[in-house]
């Protein structure tokens, strides 16, 4: 059975990629996914060799032929995304790809055309296969791209007999987060003991609950504010969320990132020990989850 683990935090910059990349260097038979497709950073630490590349199309986009246009105003009246001015000028950057303009245009002056919204990659790294992507500047359909990389990761796992997929998730609670955690077996929420870290972590735990995904938590830089750490421990207890570890503030994390390596590779110190301990707990928990 292939198990899937997603690492998220709600708020960005809490240490998701630092922790996910360390797990990647500790796990044994796994595929790694970078699901933060509009600000992917995992490849900086893992230096992948791209083996397969595919184009991601996303949604189609409206294109207008002004020679055919009779200025009837139907596109402007029916577009709900403000992509047309009252004089029927099209602003493609505001198009959400719904195709209503194409539907209502009486003279076929508007056509929906395919666009390249990004690329997805299957790569090799020193810690096993990595499936990642690059979204082109300002593109939509980000959730779809996340769904695509997850699908490819499952294919790679099946093909190569891997039993675990580690997904480094995006910040927020919207489409990319939903696409990163629907159907996974466990979510690890990284919580920073700041008021905003707590606020966003609670929201993301709500998202996990909403989709019935079991969650565990880890407090990162727990010693920067012990009072907030206690608050986190309290609400996790109330919600029945197990805390699998408390990581102290440690500059080794930044130094490892500066040298473009994972923490566990970079140093044998206390931080690596802590991450190893947390990984073992998460692995144990994953093993206990049935099909």
């Amino acid at each position, binding site marked *: 059975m292939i198990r899937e683990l997603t690492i998220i935090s*709600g*708020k*960005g*910059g*809490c240490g998701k*990629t630092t922790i996910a990349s360390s797990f990647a260097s500790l796990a044994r038979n796994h595929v790694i996914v970078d699901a*933060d*497709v*509009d*600000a992917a*950073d995992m490849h*900086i630490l893992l230096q992948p060799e791209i083996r397969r590349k595919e184009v991601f199309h996303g*949604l*189609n986009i409206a294109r207008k032929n002004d020679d055919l246009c009779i200025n009837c105003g139907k596109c402007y009246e*029916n577009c*709900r*995304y*403000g992509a047309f001015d009252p004089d029927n000028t099209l602003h493609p*950057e505001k198009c*959400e*790809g*719904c*195709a*209503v303009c194409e*539907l*209502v245009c009486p003279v076929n002056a508007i056509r929906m055309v395919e666009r390249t919204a990004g690329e997805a990659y299957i790569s090799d790294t020193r810690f096993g296969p990595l499936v990642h992507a690059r*979204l082109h*500047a*300002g*593109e*939509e359909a*980000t*959730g779809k791209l996340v769904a695509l990389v997850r699908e490819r990761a499952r294919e790679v796992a099946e093909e190569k007999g891997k039993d675990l997929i580690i997904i480094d998730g*995006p*910040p*927020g*609670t*919207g*489409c*990319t*987060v*939903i696409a990163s955690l629907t159907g996974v077996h466990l979510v690890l929420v990284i919580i920073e*003991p*700041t*008021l*905003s870290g707590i*606020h*966003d972590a609670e*929201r993301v735990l*709500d*998202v996990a609950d*909403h*989709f019935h995904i079991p969650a565990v938590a880890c407090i990162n830089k727990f010693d*920067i*504010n012990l009072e*907030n750490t206690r608050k986190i421990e309290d609400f996790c207890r109330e919600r029945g969320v197990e805390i699998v570890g408390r990581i102290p503030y440690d*500059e080794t994390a*930044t130094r490892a*990132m*500066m040298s473009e390596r994972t923490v566990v590779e970079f140093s044998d110190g206390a931080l690596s020990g802590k991450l190893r301990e947390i990984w073992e707990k998460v692995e144990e928990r994953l093993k206990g989850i049935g099909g």
Partner: protein
Amino acid sequence: MKITVASGKGGTGKTTIAVNLALSVEDAMLIDCDVEGPNSHIFFKEPMVKLKDVSIPTPRFDLDICTYCGKCSDFCQYNAISVVQDKLLFFEELCHGCGGCRIICPVNAISEEEHIIGTIEKGGEEELPLYHGRLNIGEPFGVPIIRELKGLAGERPITIFDSPPGTACPAVETMRDVDFCILVTEPTPFGLHDLKLSVDVIREIGTPFGVIVNRDGIGDDRVESYCERENIPLLARIPNDLEIARLYSEGIPMVKGIPRYEEMFRELFERIRGLVR
């Protein structure tokens, strides 16, 4: 004047800069557009008060009239409708509210109803009104809320927008149609990589922009060399100061905890004003 504070990487200090800049200039208002994780309100004592719901029109199907022809399902670009033989399934969370299914239905079996996706709330303080939006849990698309939030600008001469992280549609919506965009980064490989992505986006949008390096001192000078090479104005450096981190963790704006920073934010604003002109 409208200024957006954005960054590709999360957790670089967008909210810190947006809140403190807004507090340091006169006649400003603050609009937090990070509807998936609004945090600006944490720095103000007053609780946020609900102003309104934000909804999108979604279809309702009259199955007594429906002939299960499948035209709506074929048309929907978001795969929100599925028609198989005499069954119709609607996935509300995938619907973008475009209204196409209602138009294409040959028997008028589709009407529309408002579906609430989130709320807009108001707070802040007398001198600095704050608005933010909240995307409801389980809802995927926050852009309609961001659009409404952006429409609230203008109550004061200066509007500061706090952007969601990343380079996808919610961030783009916040970065467009403003006078200036501040890109916040940190001097690390992640910070530099995500800054480059943001620069690609902002150049495509065409908004004038500059960079702030936050936690200056934790890494190296690759961000600065990049800005120099690319002719991007470096607007300010904020030192990696544990006192700033402590104040942040407690929800205290740094200009209130360490008043000397107010001068820095005023200078930043003057610098931006000069660049906009």
